[in-house]
């Protein structure tokens, strides 16, 4: 509990309430942004397992498409994060 208290104390000693609210907004926004891509990445790997078990001879081809899909989906997390950062540092 002592650890928790000190974290809360450190967090509440932020310079201005506006900044604290912005920090919370950045955290919540970036966190919400991970939900969709999380489902998407899980879906991609699930489908890959399904297709490889069905057609093991297609494995190499599926693997290369799998990484393409993974990278495209995973990047969406960072779009949310980066635009959150832009709003955090440049927003009024």
């Amino acid at each position, binding site marked *: 509990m002592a650890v928790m208290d*000190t974290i809360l104390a450190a967090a509440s000693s932020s310079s201005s309430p506006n900044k604290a609210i912005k920090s919370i907004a950045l955290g919540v926004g970036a966190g919400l942004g991970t939900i969709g891509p999380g489902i998407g990445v899980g879906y991609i790997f699930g489908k890959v397992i399904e297709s490889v078990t069905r057609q093991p001879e297609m494995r190499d081809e599926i693997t290369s498409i799998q990484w393409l899909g993974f990278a495209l989906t995973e990047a969406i997390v960072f779009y949310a994060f980066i635009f959150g950062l832009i709003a955090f540092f440049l927003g009024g």
Partner: protein
Amino acid sequence: MRTRTKLLLALATWIALGILFGAIFGNAGRNNAFQPQNEFKLDPWVKIKLGSLDLSLNKAVLYIVLAATATSWTMVWISRRMQARPNRVQTAVEAAYILMRDNITFGNMDRRMATKWFPFIGTLFLFIWFSNIIGYFPLPVNTQEKFDLFGVHVPAFAIYAATANLSIPLVLTLMVWFSYHIEGIRTQGFVPYLRSWIPAGVQGFAAVPIFVIEVISHFVRIISLSVRLFANLLAGHLLILFMAGGLVVLLGLAAIGVFTLPVAVAFYAFEVVLIATLQAFIFATLAAIYFGGATAAHH
């Protein structure tokens, strides 16, 4: 049962270590002097100003020169020492070459276009890969913090990547964007190229909104391609920075470090093994897909 006991014991030791650190070092108070975002701040080392244009040499310039040198020097060096019986390095480079040629370029374009654009796509892949990988080696580039090494003031070691700065991915993206449009216009002609954006089968008035959507999607490609690479690298560096010690120094809580350091090591491995290569691969593949789409006869 025994493995489970061991695991539980290890977990208990770990948590106990965290509590111990918390008890011994306590809370040193919030550290306001430490500015972790300075890792991404570019101090001008050699000031060059042309009017209002800032061309100062800084950390990003050093990294981009390093990446370019590494790309050309390694590849020229290996190609000069090609042997019939390849050693391990040559095998790896040959595998990368085959990946770039067959998988990325020839898999997404027709033969003639692929032969023409393979050097460009291959260079993109290698340059981004080297610049990502160099970004994970700690180099003495943090000129704000210095430490004393036998009387010499050496800048503190820091990690930074040329691709973790929006400018470099943006320039690469603009190069790809303009080249594929120009190549599309050159192979198909201006009006047929614009017409090829509308999918086959769409007729009459419905083509207008679809064309507008296609125009928007072509511009969105600039953002998505550049921000994907930049954000992946930036977020990776931020995660490593905060987990490996940024949070500890910032909050003045040594106990947190016990729990965040393993996360930092895991993220570091994840970034080096997977993300660095994957982002170079995806950038080159998407560039090849855009070229293929712009120069394909019709869909």
